[in-house]
């Protein structure tokens, strides 16, 4: 996994509540057996008109936010289906971090496993940041994970919190499975005892 350290880029506001993973990655893009080609499906029904042309109203199609690396999101972003295709699509579109007041649990974990940073701020802060990046000339921000801060163009700084475990995994781009399997003996010992106590398992 690619480490996340310090990333500078445009942030696009998507402040509606409850943007679900069906909207982020519609069903017709879930038929693969690999992770590729999902940038095409991202926000498909919002990004494209029925004619197939890009929808000029959609934020990521507007010149000021094309190539955005961050989304500033409304509450409960990523709710609904567990489909990790939503995160793969975001990543393939170049999105590296999401900043919002809350994320749905499965989606949040999926982001973490793919090296996409999810930053949780108070709703008022998210709204304030959303207003700032809604102006194309102030949409450029820097997300600094070691320092745990978001830096705006005008010099303002928004600190954020993150669990050390998550931070380290992102900074180092750790292979979660490899790390866990270093505890193989511990898992085996636990399992033996657990199955002995619950022999119907």
């Amino acid at each position: 996994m690619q480490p996340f350290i310090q990333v500078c880029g445009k942030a696009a506001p998507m402040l509606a509540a409850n943007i679900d993973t069906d909207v982020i990655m519609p069903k017709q893009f879930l038929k693969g057996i690999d992770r590729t080609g999902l940038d095409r499906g991202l926000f498909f029904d919002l990004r494209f008109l029925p004619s197939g042309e890009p929808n000029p109203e959609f934020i990521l199609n507007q010149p000021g936010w094309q190539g955005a690396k961050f989304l500033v999101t409304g509450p409960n972003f990523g709710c609904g289906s567990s489909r990790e295709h939503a995160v793969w699509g975001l990543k393939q579109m170049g999105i590296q971090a999401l900043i919002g007041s809350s994320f749905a649990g499965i989606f949040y974990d999926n982001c973490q496993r793919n090296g996409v940073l999810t930053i949780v701020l108070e709703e008022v802060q998210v709204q304030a940041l959303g207003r700032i990046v809604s102006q194309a000339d102030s949409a450029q921000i820097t997300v600094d994970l070691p320092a745990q801060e978001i830096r705006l163009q005008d010099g303002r700084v928004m600190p954020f919190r993150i669990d050390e475990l998550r931070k380290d995994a992102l900074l180092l781009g750790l292979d979660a499975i490899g790390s866990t399997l270093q505890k193989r003996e511990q898992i085996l010992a636990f399992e033996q005892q657990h199955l002995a106590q619950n022999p119907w398992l």
Partner: protein
Amino acid sequence: MISTRPTPTRTLYDKHIDSHTVCKLDDQGHVLLYIDRQVINEYTSPQAFSGLREAGRDVWRPQSALAVVDHVNPTAPRRVAAMSDPGGALQVSYLADNCEKFGIELFDVLDKRQGIEHVIAPEQGFILPGMVIAAGDSHTTTYGALGAFGFGIGTSEIEHLLASQTLVYKRLKTMRVTVDGDLAKGLTSKDVIMALIGKIGASGATGYAIEFTGSTLSALSVEARMTICNMAVEAGARGAFMAPDEKVFAYLKDKPRAPRGELWERAIASWKQLRSDPGAVFDCEIQLDSRDLQPMVTWGTSPDQAAAINGSVPDPQAIADPILRQDMRRALTYMGLEAGMPLSDIVISHAFIGSCTNARIEDLRDAANVVRGKHVAEHVRAMIVPGSTAVRDQAEAEGLASIFRDAGFEWRQSGCSMCLAMNDDVLAPGDRCASSTNRNFEGRQGAGARTHLMSPAMVAAAAITGRLTDVRSLQGSF
């Protein structure tokens, strides 16, 4: 001096997590959590198996997993193995390859035990009280009705679980939802969970594990409880369960994979301990009085945008919060509805009874009671997609299938079908569907299609009249 510190009281959730913790990973609540079972489907698993193959890793405990084809298969009345959709066909054949290579049991589309994962796993007795279960589907919360703690995971986590039998897990906060009172006639557990989601919102339980309790829930059947735990994820809960009781034990007894004989007795003795300690403290308490409930329907594009059927479409103007007002406007535009319109004036084009939420045998009996001797409205296409092949067979044996066919419903094979429209059961733009499913998201049942969630009995009533209808108003239904 002798310390007299009392044993701390624990919730049912605490007990499940404690008993499955391999080791603590930090002081911020992360643990390595042992997972007893996982259920695998064809669409969220391929990349997980590919990851194992690429890294040369094996599956830790193949017998802890059960695989089934459910999301992409057609539900046409005549079942065939061949799939016309090349993407779905590839996923199905790759699942079969993976199950063979890694030694995992698979129910393919022609298997009599096939069905929607969250319907077949309980049917098989694969899910038992006290277990912790994770699966690549958000509705894994369903298993909470059996006193098991189930939660959905993404594909990377499926791979982690297959490789290590564990997940890196962060402890949730706990919420107790107490539902008391007798449900009135015509009301179901679907109305209870829809009312709860309406009350606390689509993220009201985000970050929480819910324990359901109260007299309403004790009185419900195990299948009806599954509907509640299933949809708890629509309030954001990452797991929702109930302490197992005699009804659960009776439900499980003699299921194909349930323990037998002396082992059964030992299991029951252990399962009876599965409850929150008296005085256990929850981070959040919610009360709901089921005597106040009316049959519920959704009017918007999020499951919390719901109201009682005798109400009307709400007015965004009345909402103070500008973001919520904007969301509501957007939802009404998508749904093609006017504020103030009575909900019972909404005319439908489709009626769908199916999904892991509401397609079990009791759901089909409820719906059949409503449609018996009546006919689907002329302008409505109505479909029944049983939750499993076993449910379908039983409904045929009980005569329900012929009630549905005589009333003009399509009687189909089992699968996830039009709940999420990954197969060929897709609505067209502008179609409006009364649906017994779990999500009314934009485009969920087809791009531009409009979904109204409700109980199976309410879907049946809407199919008959051609509009959203209070099932209690249909003569002879109850």
